């Protein structure tokens, strides 16, 4: 929708300080980040590096303590209220008393989309995530992977130009996880949405992303940004995982993640 705007997310000097009983905790410090429209960017880092916090700031589920954050040129709040993003969390977060179809229709229902249109859109999304046969099932009748697919379908319901995903595959087994990653790459390529994706899996970040943002903890900072030179969207598939380029990128991200020492070594040039 806003693809012509060019920039999906822009953070300039963003910081977040949480006030707890034991004092102030700096979760994020001086974050500069730009996500272009249609770009897939992963945030990776150890626990406590503030990657989820950053995602929550973009989603306007929390507000930054300092700096400036814009989403499609407006404030994060205006963008949330204008429903410019879809969101998925580590927990599927489906409503247990609604069928799969009714869960996918939830955002449309809340925003006053008519019954017939809702139904039609839900059918499309069910087909997209391969759950057409489970439309009338309740979430507890589905496996974890299927529930997560429903959550992803729900996040796509309003054809958002930005997808925010907080470790959506974190609770899945490796097999399901890889299949879901392949599906996500395909879905994103089809929809042309920008994605901000939080993960702590290096291969996952590399496989999915155009760029990987590496973060370090206490306080949460961006320590490196890596361009992943893998083929775009549709061309990424199971064979990509066995590419030399894929492994080279995994190594690069791992080195960036393990921080100073490796980088210093490289700086010294040991060859």
């Amino acid at each position, binding site marked *: 929708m806003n693809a012509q705007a060019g920039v999906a997310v822009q953070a300039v000097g963003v910081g977040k300080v949480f006030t707890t009983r034991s004092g102030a905790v700096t979760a994020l410090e001086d974050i500069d980040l730009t996500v272009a429209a249609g770009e897939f960017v992963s945030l990776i880092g150890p626990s406590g590096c503030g990657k989820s916090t950053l995602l929550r700031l973009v989603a306007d589920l929390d507000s930054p303590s300092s700096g400036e954050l814009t989403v499609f040129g407006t404030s994060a709040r205006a963008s949330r209220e204008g429903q410019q993003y879809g969101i998925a969390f580590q927990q599927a*977060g489906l409503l247990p008393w609604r069928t799969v179809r009714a869960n996918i229709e939830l955002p449309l229902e809340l925003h006053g989309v008519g019954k017939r249109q809702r139904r039609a859109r839900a059918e499309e999304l069910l087909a997209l995530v391969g759950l057409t046969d489970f439309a009338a099932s309740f979430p507890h009748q589905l496996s974890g992977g299927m529930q997560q697919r429903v959550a992803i379908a729900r996040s796509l319901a309003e054809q958002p130009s930005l997808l925010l995903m907080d470790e959506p595959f974190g609770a899945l087994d490796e097999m399901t996880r890889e299949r879901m990653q392949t599906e996500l790459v395909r879905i994103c390529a089809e929809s042309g949405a920008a994605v901000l994706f939080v993960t702590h899996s290096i291969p996952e970040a590399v496989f999915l992303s155009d760029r990987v943002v590496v973060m370090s903890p206490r306080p949460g900072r961006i320590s490196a940004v890596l361009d992943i030179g893998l083929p775009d969207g549709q061309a990424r598939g199971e064979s990509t995982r066995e590419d030399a380029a894929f492994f080279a990128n995994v190594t690069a991200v791992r080195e960036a993640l393990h921080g100073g020492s490796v980088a210093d070594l490289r700086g010294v040039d040991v060859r």
Partner: protein
Amino acid sequence: MSGRLAGAGAGARKVLAPLVLGVLVLIGWQQLVTVTGIKPYLLPSPTAIWDQLVQIVPLVVSAALATGANVLVGLLLGAVLAIAAAIGAARTRWFDALMSPTAAALSVMPIVALAPALNTMFGTTSTTPRRLVVAVVVFAPVFVNTLRGLRQVQPVHRDLMRAYAATPAQVTRTVTIPGALPYVFTGLRIASSTGVIAAVVAEYFGGLQNGLGSRITSAAANSGYARAWAFVLGAIVLGLVFYLATLTAERVALARQGG
């Protein structure tokens, strides 16, 4: 196959065991009364109670219906008020500060003791005092359980609704109330049994003579001891009916969400 048979066996045992115990107690009771010659005003025999019951079945049924109507009206009134109050308390802090201590106070007050005062207030030919007693007794358990349910909203659902920029009314309708429903039914199940007790006991304090409680007191006052016990039996059945009805409602509500 064998598993299903074993399951059926366990089910039969579950029903059979209390039945056998009940029959044994009845036989022991009958023996005690006939052998020791206990006076009927102390303890009538089960056969005497049964003889009475058979004679006055229509009377027991009409009395149970009269009391049952009081329970039903009181239960609905108390539950509706309690659910509305719980929704208010979940949404506004000052209302919670007002209601929660009130509900706690109500739950420890012997409400039935109010029956004579209410009889004077509304007149002795009115069913209103009894229904009010039931409503007040029902209020506390339904309020406390509903409020607990309303506060169970998962953080991920709260985030999701915020992400959707849902209005407070939409959040209440789509997330909070459906999530609280099982708790509401638990409250209703507890309230239904205490409601029946309250309705029967409230009749002990005079007023209309159409219900089970009034019939029990008047039968006992007129030396119709076996008759009094026959009405007590009616009260037990009435209590069971309300308990099973709310239990079924709870099961149905929970089955929908795989609880």
